[in-house]
């Protein structure tokens, strides 16, 4: 599957799931602040992606919990809900396009969900399908 095909499918999922217009879904758009996603929407997005990327029903495409949208971090990455240096590096590895300025200043692990952008979802799927 090409990058364009993946992007189109992701765009369709986000339009359906979040009730936004197609032109609002840009690679840089943040799922939370630009597209208005709430916590339940992240689960909805995962369900819909699993559906649209399943080509063979006998081999359903699955996105394990915590893989696309991390809700919790392994010990060592977070202490008292604050990201450690290793945790910050992990977020940067997973979300290379995200602006980490606020996260670096506050280290607040709860802010990570605010950082997901459309491109991060596409990058994840490219790696997963690749």
């Amino acid at each position, binding site marked *: 599957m090409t990058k364009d095909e993946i992007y189109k499918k992701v765009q369709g999922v986000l339009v*359906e799931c979040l009730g936004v217009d197609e032109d609002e879904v840009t690679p840089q758009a943040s799922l939370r602040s630009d597209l208005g996603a709430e916590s*339940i929407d992240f*689960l*909805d997005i995962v*369900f819909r992606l699993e*559906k649209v990327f399943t080509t063979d029903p006998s081999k359903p495409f699955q996105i394990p919990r915590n893989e696309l*949208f991390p*809700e919790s971090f392994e010990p060592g990455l977070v202490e008292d809900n604050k990201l450690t240096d290793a945790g910050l590096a992990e977020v940067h590895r997973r979300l290379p396009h995200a602006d980490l300025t606020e996260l670096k200043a506050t280290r607040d692990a709860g802010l990570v969900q605010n950082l997901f952008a459309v491109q991060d979802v596409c990058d994840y799927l490219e790696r997963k399908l690749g």
Partner: protein
Amino acid sequence: MRWIWIDKFVEFIPKVSATAIKNVTLAEEHLHDLYPAFPIVPHSLIVEGMAQTAGILVGEARNFQEKVILAKIGRATFHRLVRPGETLRFAAKIEHLSEQGASINGTVTVDEESVADIEMMFSHIDQNMAGLEFPEHNFVFTEQFTELLRTYRLEGKIAL
């Protein structure tokens, strides 16, 4: 007291689908509140009927151990009005079920005529992504609720 909005399950396939019916009667006071002299079932209560049907289906899938809460109505499209004397049929099908929750596709009919198509999501709130904490006891599926399931005539279809 729990508000009951479905009368009976007519089909229940655990972890897959469930169908419940509700008989609409002119004796229900709320039917008269929306449009005077033109009693109809409000759309919001049609959604509620689907939420109850689907919520029990989702709860049963985890042996009523999770606190199952309606979290999102993705879409609700209505095709016709429902009047007193008619029987609503709520058919819910699980699209996805995971540790964190479930998504449902629902269709509502009267005499095989389409009334509504509804997509909804339920959250297992102790597994939610918002990191919120809730009371330890299961305030959704209580002992009183088990009695309610008997009223719904689910004996033999699921383990109570």
